């Protein structure tokens, strides 16, 4: 453990309001701390620049979920384990459940939270591509009030998010609009389980007799941020054909910006990203509605 522990502080507020007031009083000084599965690794490495934390993992205002006709709203402190166990998510947002299964092992899934994962803003995270597919919205809350923002656009650069220092994520809202969409999720990691992704692909398409009438394509680990590939989506309209598959694969390669790092290569990420797109599109022929490939 390489950090000088006496330099770090953590408080455990009893209510959400208390946490928000502290953050408002000293903006940027106090950071929310959820399950800790990312922050504690930095502490261990001696690389944790932030010093003061507010434990929010058990705050009532951040837990649980609600269901309305139009939305499923998840508390930011919902753990991956809880995501997997929630029936309506299994039924209508299966890619999020898939992502939750792929994130670490059981111990990580018991502690890791959706909100913490989003705020950590790693481009290699497993849930963001699914959240982008589902047009997720985030509720950002501060002592001043709350506002909703689309998740798309929340990431503005490598590990940079569009959120004020006195705000935190309270809810993640998923519009119930993809029930009838064909859905696909595939993460390619460094090994079968407990792996950081090298390429992560999420896709959804609305298909009728005339072909594709709506598409969502989102990838992780191929850009500084989780990437919604709108230009590629734009080519996915109408009857599925070899030409469409080829054209969208070419467009995908232009839209993503993968790098070489010690986990993988840019060439591999690009090539496999294309192949996953192809697999998704070919699978549209056979997959029943709503079930992930």
């Amino acid at each position, binding site marked *: *453990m390489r*950090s*000088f*522990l*006496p*330099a*770090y*502080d*953590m*408080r*455990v507020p009893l209510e959400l309001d208390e946490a928000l007031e502290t953050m408002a009083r000293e903006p940027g000084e106090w950071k929310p*701390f959820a*399950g*800790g*599965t990312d922050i*504690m*690794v930095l*502490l*261990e*490495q001696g690389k944790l620049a932030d010093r003061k*934390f507010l*434990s929010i*993992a*058990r705050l009532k205002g951040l837990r649980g979920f609600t269901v309305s006709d139009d939305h499923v709203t998840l508390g930011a402190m919902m753990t991956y*384990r809880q995501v997997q166990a929630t029936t309506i998510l299994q039924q209508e947002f299966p890619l999020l459940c898939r992502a939750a299964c792929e994130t*670490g*092992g*059981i*111990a*990580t899934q*018991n*502690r890791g939270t959706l909100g913490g994962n989003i705020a950590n803003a790693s481009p290699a995270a497993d849930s963001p591509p699914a959240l982008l597919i589902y047009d997720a919205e985030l509720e950002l809350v501060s002592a001043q009030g709350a506002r909703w923002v689309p998740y798309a656009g929340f990431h503005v650069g490598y590990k940079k998010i569009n959120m004020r220092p006195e705000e935190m994520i309270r809810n993640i809202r998923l519009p119930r609009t993809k029930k009838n969409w064909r859905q696909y999720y595939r993460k390619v990691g460094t090994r*079968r*389980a*407990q792996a950081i992704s090298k390429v992560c692909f999420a896709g959804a398409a609305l298909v009728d007799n005339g072909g594709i009438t709506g598409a969502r394509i989102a990838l992780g680990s191929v850009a500084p941020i989780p990437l919604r590939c709108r230009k590629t989506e734009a080519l996915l309209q109408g009857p599925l054909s070899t030409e469409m598959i080829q054209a969208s694969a070419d467009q995908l390669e232009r839209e993503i910006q993968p790098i070489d790092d010690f986990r993988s290569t840019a060439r591999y990420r690009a090539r496999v990203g294309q192949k996953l797109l192809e697999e998704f599109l070919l699978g549209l022929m056979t997959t029943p509605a709503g079930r992930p490939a």
Partner: protein
Amino acid sequence: MPETAKLAVSFQVNGQPHTVEAYPMARLLDVLRRDLRLTGAKEGCGEGECGACAVLIDDELVNSCLVPVAQVEGCKITTIEGIAGETLHAVQEAFIECGGAQCGICTPGMVLAAVALLERHSAQPTEDDIRSGLAGNLCRCTGYMRIFEAILQACEKRAGADA
């Protein structure tokens, strides 16, 4: 440099109440090992990859190297030292019989992961359930085969006992 004050944190470990004075971000792993002298949980990687530090917090499997002690106020913690009662747990017996432990360093975390797995699966877990249930616990010695066998044996004993 400015120093954070230590915090008094109270929690239960293996049924016993404890209060420790510790820096709030002290790892639960270190508090267990150094302050409470419960050295069963081990440090294998310090980043939540190997599972050697696994404990149960409120019956959920977690990596104690990633938990700041400030977050366990009021929690119920179970370590490997609390798994055996008057007699060994069925998982522990099975590990001995089937050769599930070689060097033993991953064993405390592995036993806890197995106990948690059995709690999650009231019916017989499949081999896939076992593989994914243990995927967060790395073992370098065994290749996992004897461990799977131990868990299957513990399940069978449980099924036999329930029958």
